[in-house]
């Protein structure tokens, strides 16, 4: 089955066993492709014990995402570089650099479309963006956050930024939008923490009705966990305050384009037809059974211009099962529980550079 077929079939419709039978040869083919096109990838994989082709998904070689921060790994000639993606990172931190050619870039767009239309339907809905317009004003290249917003804007129409330049809720923009579009389905998009702190928290007083909205959000739970806000609390509060029930978070990363793991109605994350996850013990790197927390490995058929089809992330997650999710989706379902803790190094060398 080709990638096109996996795009065309309804997402989340393939039982896990069938899906693995489809993904395995395709991923093996990608490994072989990158081995022949990316010398760095070849150097690494040829040093590993496990020789391709893999007989199970969990035997596929994987690269730690951190490698893309230090090295340029690419399977295309420089003149075919169509787009360079960079990860978000605080100043001074190394960022990943991911090279896309036209094919991979268009597959990435198509992949995102297939995933989003599974919850939004085929039509572009009116769209509220929980962010400030100034996000897009930067003359420099887009930040990762801005790129996320721009990516989502293709699924909406009449986009309205609902925060002002000071990140405060623009009440009149919101009420104008709701006046025009509030009676039919519309889309809300934003980053998890901002949606909670700058949007929902400010809506408490106003009694706004968002029951027709579909909220899509991403960005991680770290800040919200500090406020003891779980996904469940997030859902409950939105329902209580605004009547909003259709909430979908997603998990994804710049380093693996097109693999976006979207939340189902049961609150778990699901892999689309062309991607999958494996949870590994962060110490032994062995595959973890369902229910045991480990580091998340992501697999995807999209990355062709760079060897990113099998990556070990620095995020911890738990697999909860496959095919038996209560929302009816097929495939593995999991939750993300945070980052792998960074440990301090000991020794004589500079860990914190000395300054006076």
């Amino acid at each position, binding site marked *: 089955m080709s990638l096109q077929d996996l795009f065309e079939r309804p997402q989340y419709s393939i039982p896990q066993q069938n899906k693995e039978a489809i993904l395995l040869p395709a991923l093996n083919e990608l490994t072989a492709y990158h081995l022949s096109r990316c010398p760095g990838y070849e150097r690494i994989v040829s040093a590993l014990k496990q020789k391709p082709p893999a007989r199970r998904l969990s035997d596929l070689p994987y690269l730690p995402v951190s490698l893309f921060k230090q090295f340029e790994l690419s399977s295309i000639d420089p003149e075919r570089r169509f787009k360079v993606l960079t990860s978000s990172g605080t100043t001074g931190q190394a960022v990943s650099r991911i090279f896309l050619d036209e094919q991979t870039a268009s597959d990435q767009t198509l992949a995102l479309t297939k995933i989003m239309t599974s919850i939004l339907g085929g039509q572009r809905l009116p769209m509220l963006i929980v962010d400030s317009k100034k996000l897009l004003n930067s003359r420099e290249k887009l930040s990762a956050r801005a790129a996320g917003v721009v990516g989502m804007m293709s699924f909406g129409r009449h986009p309205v930024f609902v925060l002002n330049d000071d990140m405060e809720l623009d009440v009149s923009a919101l009420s104008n939008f709701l006046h025009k579009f509030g009676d039919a389905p519309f889309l809300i998009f934003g980053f998890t923490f901002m949606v909670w702190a700058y949007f929902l928290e400010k809506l408490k007083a106003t009694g706004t009705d968002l029951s027709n909205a579909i909220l899509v959000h991403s960005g991680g739970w770290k800040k919200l966990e500090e406020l003891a806000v779980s996904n469940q609390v997030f859902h409950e509060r939105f329902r209580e305050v605004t009547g909003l029930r259709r909430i979908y978070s997603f998990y994804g990363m710049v380093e693996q384009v097109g693999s976006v793991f979207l939340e189902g109605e049961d609150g778990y994350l699901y892999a689309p037809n062309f991607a999958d996850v494996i949870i590994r013990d*962060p110490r032994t790197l062995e595959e973890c059974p369902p229910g045991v927390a480990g580091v998340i490995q992501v697999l995807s058929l999209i990355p062709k211009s760079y060897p990113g089809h099998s990556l070990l992330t620095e995020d911890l997650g738990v697999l909860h099962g496959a095919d038996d999710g209560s929302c009816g989706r097929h495939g593995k379902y999991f939750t993300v529980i945070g980052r792998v*803790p960074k*440990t301090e*190094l*000991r020794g*004589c*060398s500079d*860990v914190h*550079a000395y300054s006076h």
Partner: protein
Amino acid sequence: MKIKLFVSGAEIDATELNDCIDRIQPRPTQPFSLHILDFLEGLSKRLSQHPKARVYPEILALAFWIRPASIERLRRDFQKLQDDKSILVPRGLVFHIPPANVDTIFIYSWVMSMVVGNGNLIRLPSDITPQLDALLSVVAKCVGELAQDNVLKRSIECVSYDHNRDVTTAISARCDVRVIWGGDRTVSTIRGIPLSARAVELVFPDRYSYCVVAAKAYNTLNDKEQKSVAQDFFNDAYWFDQTGCASPRILCWSGNKNDCSRASNVFWKLLRQTIRHSSYQTELGQSLRKLGFSYGSALKADVTSITRHMPELDVVAVDDLTDISRTHCGGGLFYEAFIDSLAELTQYVELKDQTLTHFGFDLEEIRSFARELNGRGVDRFVPIGKALEFGRYWDGYDLLQAFSKRVSY
């Protein structure tokens, strides 16, 4: 800004700093005076009876190192340094700047400075680890218990202050010796702060270390002896999470291919057992950092295989040591290389290389290899198992000499 004095327990203003320095006796006694010997004996006893001594091996190691027999050996070495034309006298006030992160190694250079009769001012790192805190508390207690008229009473002080160049500058202007431990950046930053015209400086920047084992010699050992070599290697590498300057990061097998691969197979198996029997455990973040490091090394060096034996042991085999970068992730990751002989190492040695732990070579081979290197790197050759044993010779210095002035007559 407040400056905390760890030994006297006081807190002073920056304006009182000069008074504080004035109070420190720069040359409290003669080298190896009875006052010094008594103080160190007391300190050694205290440390060995410390309730945390079992938890922090650093404490026991220091206690052992300053026990009377070992100080007596140092004293005799010191006597031998003097001759019928010259004597050694203290330099004066020594300003110690330990690394910004953990590590108690600077305590040893403080002891070396103290035994030859200097006064000492230590600038404490901003993050004081429990083991360092335990050590310093015992030192402070021992100083506190000295009689009021004991000359050592006012010869030691530890200061801690938030990063402040002015304080470092003020002390630097007044000290006779400045000792800098730390990364290369720390060393060069502090080197920019002037010393007085007659002062000297000792620097202990980033270093890199490795281990060479003669494969044939290893193969002829019996089971028990082979195990004990693995145990020694474990102690060298894992005690400071493989991040000490002297912790081995490369293991070279010297000999023909067959001997090397036979020795290698046995050794890693025994090291795995040793690790399993120890309490050493790799943390999650460290485990992934090692993975990233080993994969990254395949992009830089001539890597033939990457093997995770267990979370605590990754081995990156290389054909050639040429492109091994002198950075490291720690936590139990070793480059492994087969070499024909010690001489083959000559081309790879760099100035940054500090300690070479060895097994299966006689002293003459080591000496001629050191001669061959002729100062291009490796300041220290020690038998396997002794990498972390501090000695009078460190990073190319003879500390007994370096903390003293020679007066000729």
